[in-house]
């Protein structure tokens, strides 16, 4: 029993690592641009399908690198052409805009690749389990966790120690001042958005190896990352990471002990957190209210 419990917690962390990856992108965009990107799930799907298309030519590793970059480029274009127009306007508009984009992307994907699900093959050695005992820790899932960890570390280093990163962080707290300092906010936001979408694309490729690709797979993954942000506290990337892992474990455990609540549990978790700490676990007073 205790062993089973241990397994499930580990497993939950693995799932959580994936949510973190997706939620971070969402969080970056929300923090700097004050935009809830409903289309994030859509970009994830694009990433997955691009990988599927590139796989025959570049192989898994090639696709793993190329697809997210292509997704980021698409994202950048979308940001420049559409999303940048609603910056500074009532959040209502960015919500509706990305909401519409989500529709367009899902339908576009169905139009291009068809409604029929698509498999993404992964390297043989990754698809094996660690051991008969720890069968649920496959090479691939370890690889996902490793990727997530690397990305998180990179991101935090970037935000702490590079000029761009520091500006992004400053912008999160007080955009006016940053603009006042002569920083090109527009470029900063575009870059930041691209990074966010890159993460979405990457999550898409990784998900493709684990799940069957499907035009609608985005929605299912959007909400958890969304909750991860609220639980962790809007405005705090560390919080997002914490939130992601938390809901991963929470859903993993309930799936075993009370399956019929496995989806609802993350929302209950959120409700509880908000009741105790209205700002979320690591959210700071005065952010985005």
């Amino acid at each position: 029993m205790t062993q089973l419990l241990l397994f499930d917690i580990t497993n939950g962390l693995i799932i959580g690592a994936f949510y973190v990856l997706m939620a971070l992108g969402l969080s970056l965009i929300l923090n700097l641009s004050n935009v809830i990107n409903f289309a994030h799930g859509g970009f994830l799907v694009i990433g997955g399908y691009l990988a599927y298309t590139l796989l025959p030519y570049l192989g898994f590793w090639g696709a793993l690198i190329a697809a997210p970059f292509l997704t980021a480029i698409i994202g950048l274009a979308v940001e420049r052409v559409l999303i940048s127009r609603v910056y500074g306007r009532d959040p209502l508009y960015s919500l509706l805009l990305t909401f519409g984009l989500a529709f367009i992307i899902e339908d576009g994907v169905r139009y291009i690749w068809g409604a029929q699900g698509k498999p993404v093959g992964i390297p043989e050695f990754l698809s094996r389990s660690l051991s008969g005992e720890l069968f649920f820790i496959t090479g691939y899932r370890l690889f996902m966790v490793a990727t997530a960890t690397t990305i998180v570390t990179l991101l935090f280093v970037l935000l702490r120690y590079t000029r761009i990163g520091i500006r992004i962080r400053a912008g999160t707290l007080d955009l006016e001042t940053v603009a006042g300092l002569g920083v090109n906010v527009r470029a900063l936001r575009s870059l930041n958005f691209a990074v966010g979408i890159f993460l979405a694309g990457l999550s898409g490729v990784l998900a493709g190896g684990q799940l069957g690709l499907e035009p609608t797979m985005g929605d299912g993954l959007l909400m958890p990352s969304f909750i991860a942000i609220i639980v962790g506290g809007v405005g705090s990337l560390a919080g997002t990471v914490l939130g992601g892992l938390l809901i991963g474990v929470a859903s993993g455990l309930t799936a075993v002990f009370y399956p019929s609540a496995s989806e609802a549990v993350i929302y209950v978790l959120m409700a509880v957190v908000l009741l105790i700490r209205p700002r979320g676990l690591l959210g700071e007073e005065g952010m985005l209210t």
Partner: protein
Amino acid sequence: MTIRSGSAGIGRRTVIKSAAAAGVAQFASPFVVSAWAADTVKIGLDNPLTGTYAAPGGNELIGCKLAVEQINAKGGILGRKVELLVEDSTSGDAGTAVQKARKLIERDNVDLLVGNVNSALAQAMAGVSYEKGVLHIVPGGHTDPITGTDCHWNVFRVCNTTRMEANSIVPLLFKTYGKKWHFITPDYAFGHTLYDGCEANLKKLGGTITGNELTPLGTTDFSAYLIKARAANPDVLIVLVQGSDMVNCLKQISQFGIDKQIHVAGTQQELESVEAMPPEARVGIWMFEWYWNQPGVAGVDKFVADIRKASGGKVPTARTWFGYVSIHSYGLVANAQKSLDAKKLAKALGDFQLPPEVKVQPNNVYFRGGDHQLMLSAFIGELLKNGDGDPENLFKVNSVVSGDSIAPPVSETGCTLKWPA
């Protein structure tokens, strides 16, 4: 404005422009709508074309279109051209499905309503068709009540009931794989009835159940359930989830190497899902409701060839066949009865035997008079990791069990048809 593929067999996407134009015309002139009613026999298809069930829904559409073209080629129904009005019911929004059903019946006054892949939507639609007394054929919604406790005189169903699925395959799995079973069941009506069917059979055979994982529809990560299932260490792991859930589940099973330690199998399997899986995930004994590779069976090759033509080289799946059968059975009885009267045709459809070119399989296939359930065969066999001879030949049929041998007697379905005066 609705697509009328029957009249020309236009592909759905190519139709947009012309349709839009026609749409304007229709909005402009009040008389178009009423004008239609007279000269054609109208069949309304209210089925998912977007969302999770888009793939099966799309295939059923292809089957329907082919049938309509064939009927029109042979002079239509009662000498009148058949037109197929296609509406997207969406995959889960009953409100829309009902809305479209009303649209087809009230505005376009269709003679036959067809749909839905999603059992819930099918039943919601049945509510409307029953209220309006319109003949209604459900091609691919599996939950038992449709031809059981909630059956109606005007509603017919082509695909299996979950009970038939269970009966068709459980004994074989028991014989080949062993007596200790663990289930992964989708947590909604379809899954529950399917599980009950399997359980009943298993009990009869003296097997035991080590557990049943109820997974919410749309579950992407099955690891938690698989860990639990594996810990129970059964002889067989039965996967009852469908569609993309099944794909994800089997994919993770193979990655975890569970299929190396436990037998993995299930009841209903569909080509749509199998094609969405990577080869290593294609394992176990399953049951197909129809399969395209039947050497030497009358009419199959022609059917497959026609579908390939219509679908850019893809073979027909069970779904394609469901659509095909739905339309043809209606055409046949209507012409036989020389009438479009719903009640008359409903009576005639009861115990109506499908001809070879429509049933395209060895055994007798007919709608049972007592509950309006089609007695279709179950194709039992094993999944092939890679296409044998044809990339889409991913299933090796071992036996074809006739429908009436696996269907519970009408008395057990809980269906009593109430006919209008």
